[in-house]
């Protein structure tokens, strides 16, 4: 049994050392993934540090990160393995003179030197410690998910011509999903599930301070509070943690020690990426609400009007 972490607290401390602030939930699941040797499926809105989690675990354990970026149309030959057919062709041609028997050639060209390993097979056959990251798994079609199942549950790959290749060690496997579609039950059953959401005020402030060390405490707090305020608006895309960090950096570069409505107005485009969102936030935060109306509590039932 691979025991990379001693306890949940060890995970929290370790991740903190590589500048990733995990809460009890994240750390608990990572610890469990190590003990149970199961993959972790991480879901949550874009930009809350799902991919970063895998990177940080790799950093922490000194492992190599192997990344499989999923996209629509991903298939076996891109995810698992592919026969290097050009090399096979060369081998056959170079054999003309020696006149080896067909059986000999066949067993030769379907052997490991002719195999091109793709991320999944690479992770399995690795002898050094690795962390396997299967990124944005919701982008592949539901039929293609089946490709992953054997790897995820038994950590092996069956190649018809070669037999089954299974790993010598069990790496930590992290799958991420932006939840654009429901993943299949079969996949979810094989994984531990972790939902990462936007952090609360204190954690976000801490993240800003860790990732942007030059920032002073007061500005970090203001940054976190303004971002929380923006997240409460009804937006197409709420600012993510990475955007918060970018914003904090921007403020530093611009030499702003304090946040005023003007500063927010100048730099909103760092936080928000839709024109309508920017306009809305500008209206609420920069120009201030029209006199006499309460802000931020635009709930449907509070309205006296019909819809």
């Amino acid at each position, binding site marked *: 049994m691979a025991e990379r972490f001693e306890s*949940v607290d060890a995970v929290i401390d370790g991740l903190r050392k590589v500048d990733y602030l995990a809460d*009890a*939930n994240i*750390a*608990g*699941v990572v*610890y*469990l993934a190590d*003990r*149970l040797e*199961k993959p*972790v*499926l991480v*879901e*949550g809105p874009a930009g809350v540090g799902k991919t970063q989690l895998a990177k940080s675990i790799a950093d922490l354990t000194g492992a190599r990160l192997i990344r499989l970026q999923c996209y*629509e149309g991903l298939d076996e030959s891109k995810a698992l393995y592919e026969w290097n057919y050009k090399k096979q062709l060369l081998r056959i041609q170079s054999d003309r003179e020696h006149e080896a028997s067909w059986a000999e050639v066949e067993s030769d060209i379907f052997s490991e030197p002719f195999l091109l390993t793709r991320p999944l097979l690479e992770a399995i056959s690795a002898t050094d410690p690795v962390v396997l990251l299967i990124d944005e798994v919701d982008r592949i*079609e539901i039929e293609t998910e089946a490709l992953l199942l054997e790897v995820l549950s038994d950590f092996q790959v069956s190649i018809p011509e070669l037999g089954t290749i299974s790993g010598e060690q069990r790496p930590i496997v992290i799958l991420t999903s932006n*939840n*654009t*579609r429901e993943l299949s*039950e079969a996949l*979810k*059953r094989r*994984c*531990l*599930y*972790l*939902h990462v*959401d936007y952090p609360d*005020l204190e954690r976000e402030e801490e993240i800003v301070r860790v990732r942007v060390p030059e920032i002073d405490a007061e500005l970090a707090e*203001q940054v976190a*509070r*303004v971002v*929380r*305020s923006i997240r*409460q608006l*009804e937006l*197409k895309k709420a600012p993510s943690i990475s955007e918060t960090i970018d914003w904090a950096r921007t403020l530093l570069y611009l030499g702003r020690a304090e*946040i*005023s*409505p003007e500063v*927010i107005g100048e730099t909103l485009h760092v936080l928000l990426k839709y*024109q*309508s969102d920017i*306009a*809305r936030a500008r209206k609420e*935060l920069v120009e*201030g*609400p029209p006199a006499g109306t309460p*802000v*931020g509590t*635009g*709930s*449907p*039932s*509070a*309205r006296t*009007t*019909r*819809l």
Partner: protein
Amino acid sequence: MTLNVNPAKLRDALAAGERESTKGSPPSSLLDVLQGFVHELRAAGLPVSMTENLDAMRAIEHVDIADRATFRAVLGATLVKHHHHWRAFETVFEVYFSLHSSGIEDEADVEAEGAASESVRAPQGGGAMGDVSPEELAEMLLAALLAGDTDELRRLASAAVDRFAGMEPGRPVGGTYYLYRTLRQLDLEGLAARMMGRAREQGEIPEGDPLAERLEREEHEARLRELRELVEAEIRRRLVADRGTEAMARTLRKPLPEDVDFMHASREEMLGLQRAIYPLTRALAARLAQRRRRRNRGHLDFRSTVRHSLSYGGVPAEPQFRHPRPSKPEIMVVADISGSVASFARFTLQFVYAMASQFSKVRSWVFIDGIDEVTRFFQEADDIAEAILRVNTEADVVWVDGHSDYGHALEVFRDRHLMEVTPKTSIMLLGDARNNYHASQNTVLKELRQRARRVYWLNPEPRGYWDTGDSIVSEYGIYCDGVYECRNLRQLERFVAGVVEG
């Protein structure tokens, strides 16, 4: 694999789980408790499979169950595979493991808390709250809120429940009743106002700085929310003590957001729905686009195949196919926005407009007894919420008395727009068809249907209520291509997906 538990704690856990086997070895009794928990999750509607159950059993061997946060994280990771289910899981967890919280939390901590709250809670047995008057309690709350002291808040929440909720053992009322009573007495809005006042006095908010004021207010709101949750948890804890875990878990089951009924959603559920709509439409659009791309192989294109065969010496080696142009439907939404079905209309309009990229054209009308086109509001505003606000304030929908009159609205619609309905148009009619005993004029629908591609009726009422009282949905139904019950987001999503696919 040793269990990192002490036997006393386990016994607590066992007793609270209301399991009969007290003689089993510690691990097996813990497993019993876990089984009860899984059973409860399933009863709450969460799909927990056998493998997941086994995973959870293996998982708890690796953690210290005295560490409540980790214990919960571990159970959650193994048993709950959808984040919509997380809230339900949390509630069940809290209820199921609340009685043994003293066994699972750090005991010293709990004792300290008990001692500290003694001063506040002491007179509980003696009837009235002796030394602490409501004003004093409010003052203490204010101080704790301003300091952001969670422990103090928890103690005060407990005291407030003592004092205001009027809980009596065995009384068959729900937790919401006690919650309402307590919160009414606490007067959260008054507290919020006083907090702002205090903050101003202490000079935390510079004069005339709306941004600072806004941030401060949001901080206060967050703390008040925390207080509210603490009160809720306290009430729940006492109810569990009174009625037993399983009875409580049953009454606490909350529907998942996509199952919340449009017509009976509470204010909080409404906000949850608001938040759920946009991601849902994005996911649906992505899925539909993917499906459309994949099925874009059409009939054999004979001419093109022959032309290509020339490069193979006349052999049709590469068959060519016609790519059918995906025909996006045109949508007309006609929505009743009278009081009873307003929220349904709101969500459906929002949903359809968020999906606008999937349609070649979307036009919309709203009516009560008069009808008005509102397409312009949605085109002019790039923000749906703003458009809805304008619909509310500017649309002209009252003709006589402001009671729904489907017949009249449909007649006017036909007179003005019949010629604009084409074989590409799908018409969606939204409403409960409660016509206040006016004439139905359902032949209008017959005319519309002759010209349109499809006519659908979406009814937010449960099927069982159709055609009761003044509802005449089946009179309209005979001239529709389909009448759908559409009570929640799940049904709405399924319907819209069907329309897009044609």
